[in-house]
């Protein structure tokens, strides 16, 4: 019995050792890969700051009233905009039919809106629109409303208030042919150009804008540096998907501690040439200027030169 028990124990131990050893050897060779990545500039901001960023136009304009222009030009009606807007106004009302009760509600809501534009750009204009509800008032609120991309709901109430009953009778119909008329065809930069209103978009970049690539990761820094020296051999038009991997050790000053060790022996003359070209590049481009903070990461790593599409 004892002997048998020992056998199973021994078998168990050897099996464990074998399997674990196999796992260590075979899986550890598959190292962590660092795919090339584009760096993205990141700012750390507080919740308050975020709230400011996300805040609507009101707060933004109040904070920096005159960001773009020092002097606000005399207020004069924007002829183009006025014309287009008045034409569009009826269409807008058609598409979205607000019953009379809403009219009452919305004016209250929107009263805040008109003041803002006034505060920003057209102090002189505002009084007029308010007094003369018939024509000019419509223009300003609508224009402002359009700017704020709240186009449909806000303008309607006021327009309706100005020209109350006549337009309401129209039934709510969706006229496809008038979709085009709903689009704001005005030049987006008209305000800043005119100087009559302040352009609320004071940011240097736009939402799609990308700040200059500042190579935030040491990986992309190494890549950009080694690529300067890499004279990739021309492999013809038939892709051979070459790949050459090395393990390299760097000193703190960015120089190589020793010769890069190539992984594997190339199978074809071209692969050998490819490997040699990469080796030349690694040697020639030292010392590497990499962030010292990440020295522990880049003191020993494996650059892989590859044409393979993963």
């Amino acid at each position, binding site marked *: 019995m004892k002997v048998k028990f020992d056998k199973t124990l021994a078998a168990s131990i050897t099996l464990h050792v074998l399997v674990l050893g196999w796992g*260590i050897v075979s899986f550890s060779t598959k190292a*962590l890969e660092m795919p090339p990545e584009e760096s993205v500039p990141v700012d750390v901001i507080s919740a308050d700051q975020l709230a400011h960023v996300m805040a609507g136009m009101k707060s933004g304009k109040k904070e920096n009233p005159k960001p773009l222009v020092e002097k606000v030009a005399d207020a004069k009606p924007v002829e183009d905009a006025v014309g287009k807007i008045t034409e569009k106004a009826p269409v807008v009302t058609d598409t979205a039919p607000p019953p009379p009760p809403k009219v009452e509600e919305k004016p209250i809501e929107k009263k805040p809106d008109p003041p803002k534009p006034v505060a920003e750009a057209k102090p002189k204009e505002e009084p007029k629109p308010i007094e003369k509800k018939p024509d000019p008032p419509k223009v300003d609120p609508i224009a402002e409303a359009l700017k704020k991309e709240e186009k449909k709901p806000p303008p309607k109430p006021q327009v309706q208030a100005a020209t109350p009953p006549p337009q309401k009778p129209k039934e709510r119909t969706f006229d496809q042919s008038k979709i085009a008329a709903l689009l704001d065809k005005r030049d987006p930069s008209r305000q800043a150009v005119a100087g009559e209103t302040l352009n609320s978009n004071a940011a240097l970049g736009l939402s799609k804008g990308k700040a200059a690539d500042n190579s935030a990761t040491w990986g992309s820094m190494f890549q950009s540096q080694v690529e300067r020296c890499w004279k990739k051999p021309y492999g013809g038009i038939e892709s051979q998907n070459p790949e050459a991997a090395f393990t390299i050790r760097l000193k703190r000053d960015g120089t190589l501690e020793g010769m890069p060790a190539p992984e594997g022996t190339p199978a074809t003359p071209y692969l050998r040439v490819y490997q*040699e070209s990469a080796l030349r590049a690694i040697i020639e481009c030292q010392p590497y200027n990499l962030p010292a903070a990440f020295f522990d990461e880049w003191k020993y790593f*494996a650059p892989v030169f590859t044409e393979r599409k993963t």
Partner: protein
Amino acid sequence: MKPLQMTEKDRTPVMPFRLSRRQLLSGMASLGVITGGPAFGQKRLIIPEGDFAPLPIAIPNFVAGTPSDGEVAVGVTQVITNNLKRSGLFAPIDQAAYIEKVVNIDAAPQFANWKTISAQALVTGRMTRQPDGRLKAEFRLWDVATGQQLTGQQYFTSPEYWRRIAHIISDQIYERLTGEKGYFDSRVVFVDETGAKERRVKKLALMDQDGANVRYLTRGTDLVLTPRFSPSTQEITYMEFGQGDPRVYLYNIETGQREIVGNFPGMSFSPRFSPDGQRIIMSLQQGGNSNLFVMDLRSKSTTRLTDTPAIDTSPSYAPDGTRLCFESDRGGKPQIYVMPATGGSAQRISFGDGTYSTPVWSPRGDYIAFTKQGGGQFSIGIIKPDGSGERILTSGFHNEGPTFAPNGRVLMFFRDPGGSGGPSLFTVDISGRNEQRVPTPGFASDPAWSPLLS
């Protein structure tokens, strides 16, 4: 009995236990993957898709072994530099930038001096006239970054063959640094054209691939066309308009002998050698049609390969000799077809707009080059033997007659700009890069590249 039972009893409980233990083990192993992976392997940094760039190479003048060898040493250096530069794969560094002057090629160079001028490879060499009158050429190719000697050779030759030595050294450097066979030690036969356009004199001429050592093979009394090199011997086959119908001739470069290939009624034209050099395949005219025939040069026996009421012409063998491509208008317009070398059913491989002609199979076997006519332009292009991967390398008023370099990487063709001028020869990489004019004494057309001489 008893022990047997015991063992059976043991087995039954143990088996399920073992199974579960195995499962446990595999589970632990997979755990080991997660924890062991990052711990054992270092970070792998992927560096993808660098741009191709010509290799900066320094080729200082070869050292003269004796004072009288200075001229040939400089000449060899210039030929090598020119060859590598023309290939488009190397960027020889101007000698004016060199810091170090190589005086002794037996000692390792000061690599720091070459790193400073950004050279990645360095060629040093020496030319020495031997007491027996021969010329000794030595060279070494160095990897500047690692300080390793990549290759080195020495050759002995007659002094008049110094250019060939330079081409052979160029091939060695090219092969070592690109992984491909070179093509510099080769020649080109072409039709040299002189005189006014109406009375053009066309002579068969031979030159080195870089345009040097031009030598005329015919006197120009009769019109010559479509010369083709034998892949294995120093022989040329071509078509000549003699007193009657055009005939296919065979010409031995070494002896100057020439003979008519076969004696056929009607025209024989567009000849080409088989890969072993033992047969010539050509077109024979029969009424309004022409068909492909192959003639064994030893037995003089002729075999007919196609029999169609169409014009089949421009045959070219695959390098392994099992198939051939040719041009035929059996489908209406001239197109490229591939068929077994012994005849049989042909498969059309070109389907683009326009017409395709003068197909020629690459010595590597991977591509067929052609002339394409369409849209008022003549283009040179390549296509895979299965009809895929067609690409146009160059287009213009008139480009025609592609021929492959021995390594299949470069094409030579002739281009006629039109007007009162005449055609000249160009080379282009099969990727379409690096188009270069080949210097010739006069106008030139119908080039045919020889195999490597060595």
